[in-house]
């Protein structure tokens, strides 16, 4: 079973994604910010990370940098999520595999997950 780590400070979004992706047969772990995500990954590195860009404590940019610095996590594909346009995000950070603009439809989520996990 593939494991997906969903990192979003908006808890309801994380929970709904957890439920929807569980329905699709994924194992899902959720975290509220980058710091919490890194802590959870130390126990069990996921196959894919869905990472929100704007979060308190440790945002998406800092989390991406931390992931790339660690050889254990540098190769994990990351779907970066934001309500900002991709062009804006691309100017601010690198290291993600796919960008997903919020708000999104579940069909789009499943589509990018499938592509990212190839």
């Amino acid at each position, binding site marked *: 079973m593939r494991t997906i780590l969903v990192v979003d400070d908006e808890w*309801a979004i994380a929970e709904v994604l957890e439920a929807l992706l569980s329905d699709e047969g994924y194992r899902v772990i959720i975290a509220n910010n980058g710091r919490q995500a890194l802590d959870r990954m130390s126990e069990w590195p996921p196959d894919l990370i869905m990472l929100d860009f704007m979060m308190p404590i440790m945002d998406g940019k800092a989390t991406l940098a931390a992931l790339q610095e660690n050889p254990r996590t540098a190769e994990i594909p990351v779907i970066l999520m934001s309500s900002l346009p991709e062009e804006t995000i691309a100017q601010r950070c690198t290291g993600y595999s796919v960008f997903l603009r919020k708000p999104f439809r579940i069909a789009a989520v499943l589509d990018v997950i499938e592509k990212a996990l190839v």
Partner: protein
Amino acid sequence: MSDDRRIAKLPTGIAGFDIILEGGVLRGGIYIILGSPGAGKTILGNQLCFNHASRGGRALYVTLLAETHGRMLGHIGQLGFFDESLIPDGVSYLSAFRILETEGLKGLADALRREIRARKVDLLVVDGLISAEETAGTPREFKKFIHELQIQAELADCTMMLLTSAAVDQNFASAEHTMVDGLIELQARLRGRRSERELVVHKMRGSDFLRGVHSFQVTADGIAVQPRIEALLSEPSRPILVDGPRLSMGVEMFDEILGGGPLRRSTTLLMGAAGTGKSTAGLHFLGAGNDERSIYLSFDEAPAAIRLKASVLGLPVSRLFDEGVAEIVWRPSTEGVLDEVCAALLDQVRSGNVQRVFIDGINDFVQTTGDQSRLAQVLTALTNEFRALGVTTLLSIELDFNGIVPGQPLAGLPVLGLSPMAENIVLMRLAALGADVHRLIIPLKVRDSAFELKFRRYDITGRGLEIESDSVQADVVLSELVRQTGVIPAPFGSLAAAPSGDEA
């Protein structure tokens, strides 16, 4: 996802409702429909589902109430929008009462998520949100549930309608009210002995909408919504310019007192007590249009009585009625709805290329709304649209000013703020002198035209209205009234409440 998709709208399929919502609700949005029991929420919810399914969509109707679906469908099945062939592929039903009882809000949210995906529905109606609210241990828990539904709606591209009979928070500041994309309230209220149903959109995120209180009715076909006509027509459909040419009222002297006749696209307001001949004047007016299509809107007199009067007086309009050029629209004011009456009239004017309209007794508009404060606004909007459509309009209003007031020819004249909407205002009144009652007519306002501000005497004869060619006899009547009563007439001093001074 593109921004275009975010603003895509989902029509409700209810014509008047979609006009109010400027095309419908946002796809993937979440809406609360509030209303006391019996207000029409369940009918509306079902109608939305069947309308959606008839367009190829898939809807799920979830009940959180103890009422059985069989019982509900027994009522809904009688209505025109119901189409059994759409069940279950287009419209399916699910009772989540037990799920809510046993698994709480979390279980309900999970069940809705699974059902939306499994059934591939893009419209979800949840009937009985109040049960979910009562199940919540705290307001915070309920707020979290609504938030979760909101995200589900967005993720699944499934528009959600939550129906609740919860008491309306006057400020709409409840958490769930602030969170959802729209708040729509259905009301059923009594005006006197009459029940009226009203629809109010309190909030509609990301979209403009017609504000205010709109009427709706539950008909054999389901809910029919009538947008508030003055909001709908706040601006005429095209620029208006009342610049002639002059038309005929069908009575030579009537044209003369109006400075040559009413201008095309103008509105003339005819005021007078019962028996002064306003309806007869209207018949003259329509008959003068020759082969122009015209409408006589009557609230009181039935078509047969109107046709008989025209025939007995030998008026030209009698032939036009026979030929279908002039049409009588009879809307008894007992149970009508003002906005529906206006909308239907406008439809007839537009589709029939109507050039002249006579509305006999605009007082009766009030009867169809129970709210007199709307009269001036509604008539202003309606007559502006008529102008835009090239229609010349005559309105009559019955004034209860007890026409026989010795020495005070214009006493007690109410105008109800109607002056601005009419280019011309004409008063028809009675004056008693001894055993005789005289009819007097005077133009009070003729916009952009010279006119004589004097009474003339007139009669209703076997040929209709006959107005004297000068004011000599009217002068005699009024002077004699002064002599007999000793009251000095204040012919226009009593017009303090009358039309503002933009007369020529």
